[in-house]
């Protein structure tokens, strides 16, 4: 590859008394330099992390001053998720029964996880859907798409306990995106639910 002197082939006639200086080529072999250049490029490309943080949008509802202004939801279409400590999740469908026997435990991963439960409940709401006037309004807004209001009654209520970590709250909110839950709310926990969680935790430890 290296370039040798190629320009010094001819015998040029010079004037008398002029010494013949051997002409050196000024060309340098650039191949190693190119190698080095590309090596550095690959190095920089591989060491650069492309992790740009993303932004998860959250819209808060305005606090309603009067109880009549508050949003009302159908109890049959709600799923309440409680976030305990260390990624423990509890949920119940509809209203909490007196004895608390519809209060169940779940996790983020593993069998019967929270995603399955959300998907299952959503399907249930969609199956029981009844078209009515309010619904007609929604599908008019969506260019007559009747499917756009099927899950209108489906609301997920998220109640973090004071031990819930930020990570798990975001995980649950993220779950809303993944399962396309259009209506969800972050609500403070009720004392009775806190007691239930404590009771459930106590029994699971006893086991």
């Amino acid at each position: 590859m290296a370039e040798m002197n190629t320009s010094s082939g001819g015998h040029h006639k010079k004037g008398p008394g002029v010494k013949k200086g051997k002409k050196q080529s000024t060309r340098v072999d650039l191949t190693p330099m190119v190698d080095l250049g590309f090596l550095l490029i690959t190095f920089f490309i591989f060491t650069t992390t492309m992790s740009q943080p993303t932004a998860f949008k959250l819209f808060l509802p305005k606090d309603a001053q009067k109880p009549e202004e508050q949003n009302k939801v159908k109890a049959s279409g709600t799923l309440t998720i409680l976030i305990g400590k260390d990624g423990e999740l509890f949920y119940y469908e509809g209203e909490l029964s007196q004895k608390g026997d519809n209060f169940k435990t779940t996790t983020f991963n593993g069998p019967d996880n929270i995603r399955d439960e959300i998907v299952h409940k959503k399907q249930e709401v969609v199956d029981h859907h009844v078209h009515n006037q309010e619904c007609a309004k929604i599908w008019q807004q969506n260019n007559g798409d009747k499917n756009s209001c099927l899950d209108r009654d489906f609301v997920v209520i998220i109640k973090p306990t004071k031990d819930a970590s930020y990570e798990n709250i975001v995980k649950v909110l993220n779950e809303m995106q993944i399962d396309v839950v259009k209506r969800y709310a972050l609500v403070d926990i009720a004392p009775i639910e806190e007691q239930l969680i404590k009771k459930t935790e106590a029994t699971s430890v006893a086991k």
Partner: protein
Amino acid sequence: MARPKLPRKSTTVDMTAMCDVAFLLLAFFILTTKFKPDEAVTINTPSSVASKVAPDKDVVLVSIDKDNKVYLSIEDRDKKLALAEVIKTTKGINLDKDAFASLDIIAVPFNQLAAYVALPKSDRNRVANFPGIPVDTSKGASDELIDWMSMINTAYQGQKMNLLLKGDNISTYPAFAGVLKAFKKNDFLKFQMVTNPQNVPAGTELWAENSAMTKSENSGKK
């Protein structure tokens, strides 16, 4: 018949052009790389499927660190100057405006603010030594973030701002609830949470929606 003698051509290629290109690319990559800004607090953010990149202009950032301490940082220098003025009128704290505008992060309650601003930069950025802005009213403190947010509202005068919340994975709900309350009280109802990107799990509804969308985009191109 004798073959005509072909002059022997050199097989070497001039590498100068290629070398130029290589170093041009190298220079380009080096110059376009943005270094991660040196952050005063290290916060491990959770991940989400949100695909929008977090904005980096007009940012008002509320951070919650792993000890549930809340910090506030504002990027824009002009806005910090305006904010110093607002602090003077509403709280009666007379601050060195230039020093306040050079703050990277605000990590103290109001009663320590003047002393905090007077500290040299290297001491200020050691935020672990400072108590943070009190938000959790359950511990008997007043929620000072509410005041901060309302002053920011005055300082911005309706100009565009991107409200970001950056919480640490292991911070707990009371701090988060306190921040939410401060936002709500001041009608900052839209905000964004800084997260790490995460792939949408296959087989879920959002995944189906996204793949349907890319399909229709591809067919639209054809």
